[in-house]
């Protein structure tokens, strides 16, 4: 029975994998170049510094605020509207003498009757720690996943899924670097969630590849992988769609605070969906997966035999 007669779409994903590789390579190079040349725009969570969000009754006078700050000799200030023109975000680089008192003195200086919506101060040491911890968290997540996938499948699958994850993370970081969107703790959380999501997708495809290898007498890996990709395609798209739906809700309705969080997830889900179709399977094909690698060990064989 061919796929066509089963009414399953037959798209030649595997045959087109060269184009996908070129596409991915371009994205990766652009991302790495952007990260290398202009870097990420780290938020105060990582750089340290002070952030103040103020609410005014009428349109806020940004120039007035800027000149007041300048006259008080604060260095590296950035004043901008935040969400609407009655809300102002003031960001300060770490000052020579950074302390939590800076925000109090600024608020006092700008006058009474302003609604203080948010104040964040991160000391230089804390920022450094958060950066280190963040990097470590990413590494631990990848290692944990590598071990689990290697244990559940086979090392080539583990490498395939890690290749997809690294691909996704670099591209999301690349977009953040290219557009100079602020990278804060919530974005880091989003990227870790992207890792989880993209992996979820990849695992579903891998599961099907393994199943197909075991179920057919074909030995050529390419058609088997392609068949698995087609069989899981509608699920892959459906889940991405529902996830994107809720993310659009978060992105547009969740408010400024989680705007970049939702943005990172939106990009990540799109890239993650693409990578689980192209990158992960291309990698395992490149590493030469074959039916023999799928044959279960003695113990697993018994379990399979015991199935109804």
């Amino acid at each position, binding site marked *: 029975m061919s796929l066509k007669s*089963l*009414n*399953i779409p037959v798209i030649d994903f595997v045959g087109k994998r060269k184009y996908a590789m070129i596409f991915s390579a371009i994205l990766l190079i652009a991302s790495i170049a952007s990260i290398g040349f202009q870097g990420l725009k780290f938020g105060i969570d990582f750089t340290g510094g002070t952030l103040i969000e103020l*609410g005014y009754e009428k349109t806020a006078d940004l120039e007035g605020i800027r000149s007041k700050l300048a006259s008080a000799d604060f260095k590296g200030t950035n004043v901008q509207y935040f969400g609407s023109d009655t809300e102002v975000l003031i960001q300060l680089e770490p000052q020579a*003498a*950074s*302390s*939590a008192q800076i925000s*109090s003195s600024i608020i*006092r200086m700008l006058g009474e009757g302003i609604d*203080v*919506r*948010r104040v*964040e101060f*991160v*000391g*230089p*040491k*804390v920022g450094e720690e*958060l950066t280190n*911890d963040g990097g*470590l*968290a990413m590494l631990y997540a990848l290692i*944990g*996943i590598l071990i*689990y996938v290697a244990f559940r499948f086979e090392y080539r699958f583990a490498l395939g899924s890690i290749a997809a994850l690294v691909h996704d993370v670099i591209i999301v970081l690349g977009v953040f670097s290219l557009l100079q969107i602020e990278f804060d*703790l*919530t974005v*880091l*959380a989003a990227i*870790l*969630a992207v890792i*989880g*999501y993209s*992996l*979820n*997708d990849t*695992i*579903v495809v891998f*599961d*099907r590849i393994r199943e197909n290898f075991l179920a057919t007498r074909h030995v050529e890996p390419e058609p088997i992988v392609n068949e698995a990709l087609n069989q*899981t395609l509608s*699920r892959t798209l*459906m*889940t991405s*769609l529902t*996830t*994107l*739906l*809720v*993310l*659009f*809700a978060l992105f547009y*309705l*969740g*408010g400024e*605070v*989680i705007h970049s*969080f*939702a943005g990172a997830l939106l990009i990540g889900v799109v890239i993650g969906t693409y990578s689980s179709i192209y990158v992960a399977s291309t990698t395992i094909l490149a590493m030469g997966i074959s039916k023999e690698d799928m044959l279960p060990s003695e113990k697993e064989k018994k379990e399979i035999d015991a199935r109804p």
Partner: protein
Amino acid sequence: MNHYAPWKNTLIVFFLFISTLYALPNLYGSDLAIQITGTGDYVVEDGDLESISSTLTENNVDFKSIGIENNNILIRFGDSKSQLSSKTLLKDSLSRNYVVALNLAPSIPQWLGGLGGKAMSLGLDLRGGVHFLLEVDMEAVVSTSLDRYYNELRTILRKDKLYKKIRKEDNILFVSFKSEELKNEAKKVIKNDLPDLVILEGSELELEFGLEVSSNAQTAAKSSALKQNITTLRNRVNELGVAEPIIQQQGTERIVVQLPGVQDTARAKEILGAVATVEFRLVDEKNDVQTAIQSGKTPSGSKLYKFKDGRPLLLKTTVIATGENIVDASSSVDQDNQPQVSIVLDSSGGRTMLETTKEFIGYRMAVVFIENQVETIIEDGVAVKKRSKTQDIINAATIQGTFSNRFQITGIDSSREARNLALLLRAGSLSAPVEIIEERTIGPSLGADNIQKGFISVLVGFALVLVFMAWRYRVFGLVANVALTLNLITIISILSMIQATLTLPGIAGIVLTVGMAVDANVLIFERIKEEMRSTKDIQKAISAGYEKALLTIADANITTLIASLVLFSFGTGAIKGFAVTLSIGIITSMFTAIIVSRAIINLIYGGKKVEELAI
């Protein structure tokens, strides 16, 4: 086939009933309230309840109810005006044994509260409030403890005239001797009387050795400094009047302070970080301050101090009393409407004060304000701690008559300063300087915005998914929707039961779970469709669909769970909240999407002759 045993269905219904029950408290709003707590060991009792309630009635304040809940007196109000006016009223009328704080009290019906039902606890980013991370200056702790050992060592060795000289260098005490016998004798004495001091390896010369504080003693000093600071901070927070504050240790040298609902964060910052105290000293009237400055030599027994405006004054080195002798302090204004702080000393302080004022009538006594500060500055790209100590004379007044333990300090700049000083003196000083190394403040208006926006995005995201699933999978889609709804209820009930703090990223985690939770159902439904293409037996297709998808679902979810557990252990507030809801959501979604949806499908199609599936 496709039939669950009755016990299985009963169990599922039971689970869902319990989760719905414990999710219910979140439907009830909360009342504006005032919470009154006893300070220290004091616990509020029925007597307090009666007197407070009569105070309120006498002043014609409208309140909904009053009662004792969890060792607190809780007064609920209908409007914020009577809440605020009662706070001022009660704060003035109650003694300092009570903390009076504004709060929001959940208005859960009694039967539900009796079952242990609680609403989710909202994080600071949703209810507004301040989060501080304070770091205790441990180097200062070590150096203070070294100073103490230095003094003890001198006293002990002086008894038998053992040592020649003791000098302090880089946290090491070098002791030199006249002879080897004396050195050996001193070693024995130190070993017996000051076991916390150990000889630094390789520092021993013929007639000298270096001593350092043993690492055990250092650790002990650090941990006791941390504990004492926590106690002092708790006292200060109580003075500020905050409902449900969190003050806890983080790691070995940090303290987290969370103050929900605090509006005046500037004051909170001033109060928490201040290491301030006062000293009372006599003015040196015999020597001229100008001569001392010009010659550059201060007479022995005196020390040069300055007023805040820079005027110099010679004060005696002997201290009459310090902040540690103060048992109570309160701020007020004097006859001339100038701010002042009334002081009550303990018995030993009172005795010395009485003796001094008796002997030195007509002399001046000065009040010195001492403040220690530590801040981290960046020098050549490296963060270093900068310490500073200011000692200002607040005032110097002539002793008009004798007094002992009760008197006033005047000469304070503003009533705000007087209030702060009184508070700091009351709450006790910090045993080591602290520095605020992280602050996150969310104002009440942003908190309310966040709740609203979070709620709307959950609602809209949820509705979109419901519509989409129903359109794509028809009857099965509706079943998935029921499962999804139950999933949301279960997440909320678990969050309420374990009282995990819900934050805005936490809400984002819930939204994301809503999107991802249907994945399990999508996997199953797509699989059933596929099975239907190869078999005519619909019952078999349903069953095979569920079975074959199961392992895939488990694999996919476990890997996501790994990522979210890493997030959790990474553990900073914002991220933790996201990790908690995501983890819970993944686990509950497996239950609802696989087991609950199967139960419903079984009820609809199980055991029946089905011609066509609406999928």
